[in-house]
């Protein structure tokens, strides 16, 4: 089955040459051999190898999580490298050795060197192995262990063995099992009883090679009465292709201990982020999760919705967009589940004929791959998404699904304007309505009318004489240079006669021109956007929103005036002096799934001789596109016959996938593409998430959509009087949808929890809080407080709160408080009266709003989070 072959490779993404520099690159895929190899490379003790193998068995047995299966039905676990060891060098112990991108990010954020060095100690995860690690001497002196997990397994096996997998056992979910079998890197912290770590411990994670699974494992143990604050560093913008990030974080707070864990995520959009984070708080212990989420993802482009093309930035969750369903081999409308502004990024231009899409290097476009190492029976060629910077061919629509609505054409009201003098000699202007010879009621466009408008774009023109006031037409003539013997003449006369029977045409004696002297017709054409001369004519914006047949009829009208059939190319060709006009026609073709090319014959003016007369030719551009059968019914008989008479292009044309025998579904075809170098400037980018198919059609290319992240931290309170706390901040700007949430399980009496979720939405952004508070049987006198504060900066933005409670004991006291603040004029005025500008005032209100979270963060993270929000706010102001 061809389809089966197609899907096998769907999520495989190209490996970069950069892996050559890695000390150890095992084969892709997951099996016992790989797991043993990883364990062997790390020189692990036997119990660890067993732990991994046991987890592998569970991974194989575990069903896929429902939501994951639904959203990513075909993730191929055999197509991921599970372990990469960068360079053969040992771990480094100097800040200068930090990857330059991270250092750059810090410089951009304006964090002074002194503060960067103020860190208590850090590990930076580069690829799977921890290459950077430092431990301050005084930490060691206090008996605090802060190291990477691999070292911990070797040096502190008794502690690791005792706690690893106790909070999140390998069998907890499929991803926990996966992590348990192939984990590498991560942080290990042990704080002895009653020791307080006064400065935050920090680590930086980053994924740098494409397709590298990141499976770090973090284990933090605060022994009785101890306290520690751990900060999982900002990854800095990570520019990689699709990666699976499936970390497991386990926190254990022994009786009376206190752990605070802070995340400031800024993962790259194409990272599948499936972190399982859970904490156990024993008696009288406290665990706090602090989460700052600034999400991001690709491209400013037009997508197709049932009501017409739409700029991706305007797409909102719930909208439906045109998407490719590879199972059925058809285009469908699929629902958008999320839309996000993805920040400012550098982009490539992907060009195929007139199609042009701007996308970031890592954005996956539908194409094919060749892998000589695949078993021949699976097919070494397979259809797949390929990142933009590696793209040579693209599989593009060859047809389209119908969408759109007819356009309403208002009948113009025309008036006569006089200037005259009254009996006292005073000048005045009088206006009087004129009787229109067109129908009074507005009409909807139909195929014929669109053909007429198309013909006007090619061969039409107008002569206008303005009245005294300049704002009205005194006299007008609508004319078409369609000779009597022209293929379009009879159709033109028929349509005009049906449309405006009361207006008689004037036929010029030489038979070359036909015109209608009519102010009302001219007004109507002008009102609908048909104006200008050959070089300034444009396709009005509403044409792209019409139903398929009307867009086809419009193109047919253009062809009947300026087009011809080129048998040698088996194509239609259309010539114009206006490149802009042809580009606009080409976009209409793209919405129809017709692949066009645009040539320029010459651009310099040149002198030519036409029938014995010297003329200036102003350059010409030619639009060439296939003889699409759908166009034929709308063409004049003559042109249609000529198109039918041309030998049709071979069905194999643009349908061969490399040298394979893959049969492309009829609705798509394959085209060569050119990809420009990366732009030097950054542009605003967007991405959407599409239900089911996971792709959408943008500017006539099929591109993959963004990924999901699951990031609700959880605390399980197992001992009496334990305390759990989750603080989160989410910011949603233009086109963004941010989710935040938390899970609290009260499994012991007198436990308390606080969930404090703050969200900011602006420029139509949307934030959602989802949280669960669970009070188990026997957990008496539980207190929980959920507080969701939303700050909404304008009328278009919104915020939703979904608190869930599962309460088994009646004496639980659960408080839920949700506040929605709108920045009011009073607040802005108050701050402005102190000398702040309006922008400064807004920024101050936002900063004040997130202050409760900011103040819990170490300085550099506070600065970073504030700055990120400011950058995002600036970005969305645009």
């Amino acid at each position, binding site marked *: 089955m061809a389809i089966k072959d197609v899907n096998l490779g769907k999520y495989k993404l190209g490996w970069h040459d950069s892996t050559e520099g890695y000390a150890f690159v095992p084969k892709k895929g997951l099996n016992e051999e790989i797991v043993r190899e990883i364990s062997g490379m790390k020189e692990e003790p036997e119990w660890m190898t067993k732990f991994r193998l046991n987890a592998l068995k569970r991974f194989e047995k575990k069903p896929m999580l429902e939501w994951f299966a639904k959203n990513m039905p075909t993730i191929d676990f055999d197509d991921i490298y599970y372990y990469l060891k960068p360079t053969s060098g040992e771990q480094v112990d100097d800040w200068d050795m930090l990857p330059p991108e991270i250092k750059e990010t810090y410089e951009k954020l304006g964090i002074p060197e002194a503060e960067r060095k103020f860190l208590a100690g850090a590990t930076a995860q580069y690829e799977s192995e921890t290459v950077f690690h430092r431990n301050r001497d005084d930490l060691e002196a206090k008996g605090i262990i802060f190291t990477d997990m691999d070292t911990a397994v070797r040096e502190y096996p008794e502690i690791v063995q005792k706690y690893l997998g106790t909070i999140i056992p390998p069998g907890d979910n499929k991803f926990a099992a996966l992590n348990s079998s192939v984990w590498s890197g991560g942080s290990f912290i042990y704080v002895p009883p009653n020791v307080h770590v006064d400065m935050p411990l920090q680590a930086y994670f980053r994924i740098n090679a494409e397709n590298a699974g990141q499976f770090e494992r973090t284990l933090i143990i605060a022994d009785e009465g101890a306290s520690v604050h751990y900060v999982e560093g900002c990854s800095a913008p990570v520019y990689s292709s699709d990666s699976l990030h499936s970390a497991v974080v386990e926190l254990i707070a022994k009786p009376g201990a206190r752990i605070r864990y802070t995340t400031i995520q800024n993962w790259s959009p194409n990272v599948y982020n499936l972190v399982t984070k859970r904490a156990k708080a024993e008696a009288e212990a406290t665990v706090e999760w602090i989460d700052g989420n600034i999400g991001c993802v690709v491209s400013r482009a037009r997508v197709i919705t049932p009501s017409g093309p739409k700029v991706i930035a305007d797409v909102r969750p719930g909208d439906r967009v045109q998407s490719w369903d590879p199972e059925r081999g058809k285009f469908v409308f699929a629902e958008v589940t999320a839309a996000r502004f993805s920040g400012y990024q550098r982009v490539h231009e992907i060009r195929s004929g007139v199609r042009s899409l701007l996308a970031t290097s890592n954005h996956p476009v539908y194409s094919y791959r060749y892998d000589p190492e695949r078993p021949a029976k699976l097919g070494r060629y397979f259809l797949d998404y390929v990142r933009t910077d590696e793209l040579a061919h693209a599989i593009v629509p060859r047809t389209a699904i119908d969408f759109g609505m007819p356009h309403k054409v208002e009948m113009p009201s025309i008036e006569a304007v006089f200037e005259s003098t009254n009996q006292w000699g005073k000048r005045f202007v009088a206006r009087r309505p004129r009787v229109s010879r067109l129908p009074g009621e507005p009409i909807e466009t139909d195929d014929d009318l669109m053909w007429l408008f198309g013909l006007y774009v090619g061969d039409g023109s107008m002569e206008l004489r303005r009245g005294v006031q300049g704002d009205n037409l005194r006299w007008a003539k609508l004319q078409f240079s369609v000779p009597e013997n022209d293929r379009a003449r009879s159709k033109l006369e028929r349509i005009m006669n049906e449309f405006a029977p009361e207006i008689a045409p004037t036929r010029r004696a030489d038979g070359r021109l036909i015109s209608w002297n009519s102010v009302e017709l001219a007004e109507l054409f002008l009102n609908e956007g048909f104006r200008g001369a050959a070089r300034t004519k444009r396709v009005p914006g509403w044409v792209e929103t019409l139903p398929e047949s009307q867009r086809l009829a419009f193109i047919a009208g253009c062809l009947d005036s300026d087009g011809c059939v080129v048998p040698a190319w088996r194509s239609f060709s259309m010539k114009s002096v206006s490149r802009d006009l042809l580009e606009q026609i080409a976009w209409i073709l793209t919405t129809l799934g017709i692949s066009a090319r645009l040539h320029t014959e010459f651009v310099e003016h040149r002198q030519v001789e036409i029938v014995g007369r010297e003329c200036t030719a102003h350059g010409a551009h030619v639009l060439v596109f296939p003889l699409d059968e759908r166009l034929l019914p709308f063409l004049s008989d003559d042109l249609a016959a000529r198109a039918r008479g041309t030998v049709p292009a071979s069905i194999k044309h643009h349908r061969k996938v490399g040298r394979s025998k893959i049969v492309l579904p009829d609705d798509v075809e394959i085209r060569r593409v050119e990809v420009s170098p990366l732009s030097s400037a950054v542009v605003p980018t967007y991405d959407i998430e599409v239900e089911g198919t996971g792709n959408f059609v943008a500017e006539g290319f099929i591109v993959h959509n963004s990924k999901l992240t699951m990031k609700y931290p959880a605390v399980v309170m197992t001992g009496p009087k334990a305390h759990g706390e989750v603080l989160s901040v989410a910011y949603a700007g233009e086109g963004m949808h941010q989710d935040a949430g938390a899970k609290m399980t009260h499994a012991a009496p007198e436990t308390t929890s606080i969930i404090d979720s703050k969200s900011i939405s602006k420029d139509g952004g949307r934030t959602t809080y989802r949280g669960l508070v669970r009070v188990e049987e026997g957990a008496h006198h539980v207190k929980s407080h959920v507080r969701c504060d939303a700050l909404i900066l304008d009328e278009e933005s919104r915020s939703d709160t979904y608190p869930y409670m599962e309460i088994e004991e009646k004496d639980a006291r659960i408080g839920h408080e949700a506040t929605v603040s709108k920045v009011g004029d009073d607040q802005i*005025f108050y701050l402005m*009266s102190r000398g702040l*500008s309006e922008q400064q005032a807004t920024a101050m209100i936002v900063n004040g709003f997130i*202050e409760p979270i900011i103040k819990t963060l170490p300085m550099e993270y506070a600065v970073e989070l504030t700055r990120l929000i400011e950058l995002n706010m600036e970005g969305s102001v645009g």
Partner: protein
Amino acid sequence: MSTLTIRDLHASVDGFEILRGVDLEINSGEVHALMGPNGSGKSTLAHVLMGRSDYQATAGSVTVDGVELLGLPTWQRAARGVFLAMQYPVEVAGVTVGDLVTAAFAARGNGGAPADLDTQVRDEARRLEISDEFLTRGVNAEFSGGEQKRMETLQLAVLKPTFAILDEIDSGLDVDALRDVARRIEAMTSDDNLGVLAITHYDRLLTELKPDRVHILLGGRVVKSGGPELAQQLEATGYEGLAAELGVDELTVEKPKEADPFGEAGF
């Protein structure tokens, strides 16, 4: 020595004229009291002077040393040395008074906040009997009326404007707070040469804050000006008595209803 001059100021809200020609002249170091019944346009005057966008000045001029203020955005009026202490200061969660005055200095340019700003804020707080707790809270967040007004006075004292407009600073104040606030403002008029326009309903404030001039606003116009004795006369006759004496038949200029600018400000 600076002068704040208001000439024939007309202003309206939602097209309804509330100020119908106000003339005032205030010099540095002087305290002017503007008295009037509810609805006479007192608060409107304060907001128009500060340039709130939903109040439109339709005629006249407001100048500081000859520089026209009308037409400037609010923050630029602040930069020209005009300060408005509000009747209902607005809560800004998470922003301390220290943050606010630091930002205000930064916005003003000229090298930003003075190095000893923290100390200044603390000293002023002590002088105004504001406990430290209020310095770490968000401005006006869960403050009582008295605390709000003390905090407005603190900002006034730290920012050192040329002219202060005090919009009903006595409302919601107990006797002690009123005395503290009045003392501080009085000191500023003599030490820093601050010019004050104190807008008030009652003469209660004026027993604490000695005005140089008293103006009576009725029906959107200043109908009478005089020395401090005018306040006492008013105490005796009431606004209606005064109106009758002056032959003014319209005391208030309130729009029939719904013109409450605070009601719909959306919180």
